[in-house]
């Protein structure tokens, strides 16, 4: 996945996210905030699943399923872009 656009997002600690390119703003919960911040510093998907497991004490399958769903959502909102149809 291409996270170039995601790296431009202005992310506040309270979960308010502003996209300076489009003017859209979003709210994310604690987990969403954690994921966005890790993606901004370039963490790979597998490492991110491990980090979610450790941070939120969930199973690996649970973390992977929820992350896939979240990344699909970010892709559909054009916040990150799939490369060759893949967001992994």
């Amino acid at each position: 996945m291409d996270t170039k656009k995601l790296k431009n997002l202005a992310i506040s600690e309270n979960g308010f996210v502003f996209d300076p390119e489009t003017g859209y703003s979003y709210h994310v919960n604690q987990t969403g905030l954690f994921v966005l911040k890790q993606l901004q510093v370039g963490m790979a998907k597998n490492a991110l699943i491990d980090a979610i497991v450790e941070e939120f004490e969930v199973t690996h399958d649970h973390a992977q399923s929820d992350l896939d769903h979240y990344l699909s959502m970010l892709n559909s909102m054009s916040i990150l872009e799939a490369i060759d149809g893949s967001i992994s």
Partner: protein
Amino acid sequence: MEAYLKGLDITIAVSGLKTGDNPQPGVPVIRSIRNAGFTGKIIGLVYDAMESGIYCHDLVDEVYQMPYPSTGVDSFMARLDYILSNSKIDVIIPTLDSEVMLYIRMEDELRSRGIHTFLPTEDQFLLRDKIKLSQYFPPRGVDIPQTFVVQDIAQIMELKDRIDFPIIIKGKLYEAYKAHNFDEAFKFFYELESKWGLPIIIQRIVVGDEFNIVLIGDGKGGICGMVPQRKLVITDKGKGFGGVVVSNPGLDAFAVKVISELKWQGPCELELIKGIDGKYYLLEINPRFPAWVRLAEGAGQNLPAITVLLALGKDFDPLPAYRAGTLFIRHAEDIVSDVSILGEISVKGELVINKEVKK
């Protein structure tokens, strides 16, 4: 905040002091000029005694009622000569679409009286006309939503195989409506015709994100300052009552392209849309500052103050990059005043508010 106008001992006249549900740009233009350290005299030029800026405290020093632009150059100039017999004017910033052409045509006479403006040429002004826009720009690589100019409703019927509803129907000067079928299209055609005359503009709706850009063209194809925003709050009249500054290289490049083709001189507002096809489409070019121009000041580019310097031919350092994320929300507030002020401006057509400011 840069004090661009500090110590400048001049008189600046600004028109369009009405605020409210369809605000004019004069009040925010004056606020930005004051915020640039300007302590000289500001004259408000109004068309109506109920323009709310007349009643704002500490906004203008003097107010003069003007004849409507439709009365022509002679009556306008005669009124300005009267004002000049009371007070000098060094710079005029017109802020209403309907008067810009008049000021363009009066430029030489104004200059001979020591009055400076920073406006486009008549040709530039006419090229951004809603009717000309769709003819001038597409051959030059600037996309416009598919547009048809019609003179009667039969011509709308003739478009039945070429347009898909809903469509936008625009008056030649102001107002636009969304029509979902031919019946609505005919209704809006007659409404717009009765208000603004013919022709009427039919435009395909482009789905996407709308943006507005305030800028000053240097008259040579360059831009002296530019701030783009996306409207966050839109009233039922389509007016932006809230917005946020965006930073989008594609948007900036589009504005640069439009102005390089038009070689626009002076302030203007671009209305455009980024379609879901990823292309930018130019919707309109308004030939004056928008009412939200204080957002530019807030984002680091005081464009009204720069216009004063440009009118006077004064140099200034390149403006800083605008700050994306700067936000405005329009706030309506009641002004409490006295009926004697209304009486003064209604009866005499002029009002001296601040007698301390030197003439």
